[in-house]
């Protein structure tokens, strides 16, 4: 880069953006993301939640699973319990911090796995010819026939419930929409000129898919996946609420909400906390996701 500017300084005076590293596609996307206040707010909120979850053992003021009968359903700031205590007298702040671990894992892991499986299926359907397309997409349509919440509940219920079963259920729910997004993106890319241009430079089918198709499908799929994370957080809370996710006494926001509901008239603010945590996490992922979508729109630059 440096020698290029020294050769022709007159033709190209050092542009303001020239110093920025823009060697990679993702580097450039990151640069644009930083300039979006909404996305940065989401990122900041997520940073707090993620750091709290990671360092839970060190920052949680109390043991999340140890309660005291004297502390049941206490309001905010009661004897060192900043956010009060739950129906078994356990510290709410500690449980919220620990519960973030489960909620984040349930938000991210199913989406990532579904992105891999659904993405691969979508690519195959989009690039593999008519038969593969019909076969894969019609099977996906069958899954589409059920509302996603119902499907997740049915699968988790059939498998028995628990952390792993919940994850598997959510993954299965997310595969069809992910596959559909990947398939339609692939179908669009497949007919673009640069695919033919790549063939004209001697690229084989495998190399075209690996370089040019995946490179261009990854954008829309990533944006879509990031929007699914907030849905996944909500759905997993729903599963726990129904007793199909993690089991007590594990701290989990959905489960906490479920066990605190009967006490809503006693300490309404305390009972609202897990819901607020779910809401804020979901919003944070949503903000980041829409920022990502805007940042990845290269041609709109």
């Amino acid at each position, binding site marked *: 880069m440096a020698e290029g500017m020294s050769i022709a300084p007159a033709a190209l005076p050092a542009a303001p953006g020239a110093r920025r590293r823009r060697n990679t596609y993702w580097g450039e996307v990151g640069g644009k993301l930083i300039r979006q206040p909404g996305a940065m707010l989401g990122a900041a909120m997520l940073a707090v939640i993620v750091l709290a979850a990671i360092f839970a053992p060190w920052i949680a003021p109390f043991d999340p699973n140890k309660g005291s009968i004297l502390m049941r359903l206490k309001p905010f700031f009661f004897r060192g319990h900043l956010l009060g205590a739950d129906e078994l007298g356990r510290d709410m702040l500690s449980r919220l911090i620990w519960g973030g671990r489960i909620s984040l894992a349930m938000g991210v892991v199913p989406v990532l796995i579904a992105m891999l499986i659904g993405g691969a299926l979508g690519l195959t359907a989009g690039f593999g010819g008519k038969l593969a397309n019909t076969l894969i997409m019609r099977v996906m349509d069958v899954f589409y026939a059920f509302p996603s919440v119902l499907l997740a509940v049915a699968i988790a219920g059939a498998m028995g419930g628990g952390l792993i079963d919940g994850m598997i259920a959510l993954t299965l729910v997310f595969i069809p929409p992910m596959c559909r997004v990947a398939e339609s993106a692939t179908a669009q890319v497949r007919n673009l000129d640069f695919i033919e241009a790549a*063939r004209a430079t001697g690229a084989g089918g495998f190399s075209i898919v690996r370089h*040019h198709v995946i490179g261009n499908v990854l954008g829309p799929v990533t944006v879509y996946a990031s929007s699914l994370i907030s849905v996944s957080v909500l759905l997993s809370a729903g599963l726990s609420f129904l007793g199909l996710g993690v089991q007590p006494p594990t701290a989990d926001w959905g489960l906490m909400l479920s066990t605190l509901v009967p006490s809503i008239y006693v300490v309404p603010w305390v009972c609202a906390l897990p819901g607020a945590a779910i809401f804020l996490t979901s919003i944070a992922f949503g903000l980041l996701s829409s920022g990502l979508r805007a940042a990845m729109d290269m041609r709109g630059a």
Partner: protein
Amino acid sequence: MSAPLLEIADLDVAFHGDGTPVQALSGVSLRLDPGQVLCIIGESGSGKSVTLRAMMRLLPERRARIGGQISFAGRDVLAMTDRQLRAMRGREMAMIFQEPMTALDPVYTIGAQIAETVRRHLGGTQAAARARALDMLERVGVPSAARRLDAYPHELSGGLRQRAMIALALSCGPQLLLADEPTTALDATVQIQVLLLLRRLQAELGMGIVFVTHDLGVAAEIADRVAVMYAGRIVEEGSVAEVLGRPAHPYTAGLLASSVEHVAPGAEIAAIPGAPPDLRALPPGCSFAPRCRHAVAACDATVPPPVRPGPGRMARCFTPLGFAPSGHAVEEHVA
């Protein structure tokens, strides 16, 4: 006579889809000597681009039925295996496209795309391929090439993008460059720059070029020889000066007359009456006969055989303009 770089004989291409087959090309024969520039002129749908894609076997294998012969540097292109085709494409025969914006992958830098092709065909390290990409960008006249190497297609202007695509196409030193209307999407001033660039590179590298265009001015600028296509047939062929200066086929004459150059503003432009035929139902005779002022009865009955109205010229017409009628025409084998 030296061996031709490219020789096409009786090329037929028909697309079989859901409905009636579309006869895109009928009996196309062409010949290109090494280091020569051939322009294929014709309007939209005349088969120019199909001819170009057939040369590289880029037509969809399942739907396109290809008949006839294509030989490139003495090898039968239609008999090549996938592996042979991949080795040929980009290495010996390269292609540039009309829309440099869409023909370059938006998510990779220019340098990465050139380097990818270089490594595929010539091997070597990433650093060596990048150096070659830089060298190519400099050769095609991209200013501050070292910086453009890391630019994405959308960061370049249309002219620079087309230069980058030319650099990509020429990065492995092909003997034959196929150009599919590479200047159509560009501004008039940039158009001339790109044409001059292609001419200079053609002379430097000694490669042959098949250049498809609908712009007679572009053809006059770059071509050694010109082939005029109409409804999937080559209706006239010859040196650029002869064909554009003294057209033998009424269609060529009509094209030249309908040019807007040297026409006073407001004056009527001499358009050719009628429209090209439906390629799903070609007439038995000359495809141009329904629109032709010089048509005779024979034109509707059979497709006119190639006649040679002059040395190195060919026209498919019973009544070539300015030449003796076809009764006296010399058949192909005599020429």
